[in-house]
């Protein structure tokens, strides 16, 4: 099975890396969408369905926390699995994002295989 993933990060370089890591790791993608902040991501979600979202926290316009709040407030998006991908590995931040509904949290830097493993975990892909 292949998946549709949305990457939300204000750094074009980081979006490119995440996409590349997914492809190189063998994670099966049918579509990969990108947004530079929460606002762009919400706009995109109105026209494109995705299976999972990878989001940064510190972003201009609408940051990751507000993005999570908006997702959680919307019945249509509430069940979408979200993985936070952030440099912030402090306990406070991790707990706050999980309490806002994030299903996973990857701290940068992470080994490439960790991204695939986390995606497969939140998507319920059976281990081979």
């Amino acid at each position, binding site marked *: 099975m292949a998946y549709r993933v949305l990457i939300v990060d204000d750094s074009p370089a980081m979006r490119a890396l995440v996409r590349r890591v997914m492809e190189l790791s063998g994670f099966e993608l049918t579509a990969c969408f990108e947004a530079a902040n929460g606002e762009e991501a919400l706009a995109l979600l109105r026209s494109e369905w995705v299976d999972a979202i990878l989001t940064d926290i510190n972003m201009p316009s609408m940051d990751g926390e507000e993005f999570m709040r908006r997702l959680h407030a919307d019945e249509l998006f509430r069940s979408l699995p979200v993985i936070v991908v952030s*440099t912030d*590995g402090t306990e406070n931040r991790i707990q706050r994002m999980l309490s806002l509904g994030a299903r996973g949290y990857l701290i940068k*830097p992470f080994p490439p295989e960790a991204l695939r493993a986390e995606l497969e975990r939140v998507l319920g892909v059976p281990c081979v």
Partner: protein
Amino acid sequence: MFERDWNHALAESIEDVLEKMFFISALQGDEPQPGSARSDVVAQLSFEGEPSGWLVLRISGGAARSIAADFLGAEEQELTSAQVGEVICELANMICGSVLSRVESEAAFRLESPRLLPPEMEIDCEGAATRTLDVGDGRLTAFMKTGNPACPTAEKSVC
């Protein structure tokens, strides 16, 4: 103790970030040399929390291009200066977040967006944790400092 912790965390973080996300093994370099080259790429970001501070990353032009190519999986000659700058900003972001997580894992921080500085800009690096590494065909030096001023260019002494 404070200084040793920050220096140690900075060294570990740079090596960890380069290895995991840039697929680069770096060698420890000599002490940073004063002055700068016009081709250097310099990224800076500030963080707020307990404590607040800043990180500055200075990378020679060749090394910056090589790092960006590894990160993006592209050929060096294909990259624009903007792409190289974006990658070095992201590198600074990851190093800073990694250091803070190691040193103050219980605290809360807010990292500002990284920005590029003109390579000739003078940085107040006195008392900063410092790490220099040889990367590819150039050199990377990171400076990290806590306390005021929150901006490294607010005072002048050349790094």
